């Protein structure tokens, strides 16, 4: 089976600095794929290249058979790759429900004229969107706070809301940028369970960029380690844990 996401020889330069060098990735369909690396390894740059925030200097990115290295973020989301952000970016002046409803935008069939005139199609679709959004919130245990302001939620709930919002775009690939950032160990464990469950329930592929080794080791099937923008190892959690290069990158060379 062809990988859902394929990265071929991607290099990302900022002036003289190559934040990502010659990176290759192949994320199999349905996988839980972890991309890890120490601080400043280029993880977030990889993430931004994959989601269209940056265009790579060289190389190809193939998502579901389509080249996306020159596509804008909204086009990539449209193709079915949704993301979350390391520093949560919820729509602050909307309610929890509206945040999720907004993400359903992509699948909307109504045109502007429907909304302006208030046609039957518009009303039916609005009701549908609201219903789906509520269902999604229920899955994440957020339905009871649907009417609250999104930013009034506690931190952990905001993270879950962000994931729910990404899922509302009905993606094939979910990209999570440091989902465990700022969480205590207890919350991290719950999050790991949730991520695995999402993968199974929604039958999608998850690419995880993470700093927290524990999270990645706990759930990912394939882990790729980068340092200074280059791949230093790839394999199962067990292989990665015993890889001397990885240990050196994380603990510092002697």
């Amino acid at each position: 089976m062809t990988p859902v996401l394929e990265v071929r020889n991607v290099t990302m330069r900022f002036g003289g600095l190559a934040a990502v060098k010659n990176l290759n990735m192949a994320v199999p369909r349905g996988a839980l794929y972890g991309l890890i690396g120490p601080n400043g390894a280029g993880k977030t740059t990889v993430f931004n290249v994959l989601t269209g925030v940056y265009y790579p200097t060289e190389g190809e990115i193939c998502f579901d058979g389509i080249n996306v290295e020159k596509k804008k973020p909204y086009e990539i989301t449209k193709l079915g790759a949704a993301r979350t952000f390391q520093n949560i970016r919820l729509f602050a002046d909307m309610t929890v429900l509206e945040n999720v409803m907004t993400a359903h935008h992509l699948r909307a069939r109504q045109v502007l004229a429907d909304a302006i005139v208030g046609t039957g199609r518009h009303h039916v679709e609005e009701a549908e969107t609201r219903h789906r959004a509520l269902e999604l919130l229920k899955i994440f245990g957020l339905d009871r706070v649907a009417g609250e302001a999104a930013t009034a939620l506690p931190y952990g709930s905001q993270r879950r809301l962000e994931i729910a919002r990404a899922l509302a775009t009905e993606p094939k690939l979910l990209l999570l940028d440091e989902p465990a950032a700022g969480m205590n160990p207890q919350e991290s464990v719950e999050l790991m369970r949730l991520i695995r469950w999402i993968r199974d329930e929604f039958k999608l592929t998850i690419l995880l960029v993470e700093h927290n080794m524990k999270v990645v080791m706990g759930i990912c099937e394939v882990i790729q380690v980068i340092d200074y923008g280059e791949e230093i190892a790839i394999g199962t959690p067990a292989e990665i844990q015993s890889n001397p290069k990885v240990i050196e990158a994380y603990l510092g060379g002697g």
Partner: protein
Amino acid sequence: MSPARKVVSIAVTLAALAALNYIFEYGFGDFYINPYYARIINLIGINITLAVSLNLINGMAGQFSIGHAGFMAVGGYTATYLTVYHGRQIAEIFGRSLTDPVGSSIVMIPSLIAGALAAAVAGLFVGIPSLRLKGDYLAIVTLGFSEIIRVIILNIPAVGGATGFTDAIPITNFFWIFLMAILTIVITRNIGTSTFGRALFAIRSDEIAAEAMGIDTTRYKVMAFVISAALAGVAGGLSGQLFANPLNPQNLNFVRSIEVIVMIVLGGIGSITGAVVGATTLTILPEALRSFDQQFPGLRMVIYALLLILLMIFRPQGLLGRRELNLSWLRRRQRKDGSVLA
């Protein structure tokens, strides 16, 4: 709302507007509306259209445009030009003259449509290149645009140049002004409660996150900009053909744009009812303060400015903030069912 109820409410609105319009023009028995008050009420209607339409781009989409007078000018001059140079022919097609109420109403329709379309096209041309810019840069481009429009109009003799379009035929009346104000409110409200409105609110809130949700931010900003411009064009078409209120490039400079911005800021930026309240207040206030001028000439504007400053100190979010004023507002506030949008 079911289709039948919708038709009924539209019919009732039209009938009510027509009845009020009759009272405005011919009085009711012995009762006549003071022309000075009638003029203020008409200006309120036009300012509501302007403020609510600007609110679409400045409030809902969060893009700071200060060129609304420019779109008003484009629409106003186009609409008035059509009436002045072709109005008679259009009315004659239907066997009417421009001076009777039916004839002038028939001409009003193509005139306003032409004004809206011209302003929409202007909005598209300004919007496509400039809406990639953010914040202050967009403000400067829109300001520049409206000044360019003004200078161009100054140099077209067919529309009166610097003396203003004094050939304009006063076919605007209460009916058309408030019909357009209501239409503007309904259009923006319906956009606000739809997936398009949510896309605009998302852009206002966080553009990067909005892109990540699959929202083509530039496209939506341009869309909002074009609709906003078209509605400003309608307001221009109405005001240019109002009795004794000819279009004049002097009155369509950037001070006019700022006036409209002050209206929506005062009412609460992002709130449609806020824009209505702001437009009404700021049209009445300078007139209501006129008595001060009789004792101390010039004091009026000092008080006007003071009131605005005080409001901005004690209520920087505007009178209504982002809330909407409606009958179920109190109930909704207690229920918190997630249905309150902006």
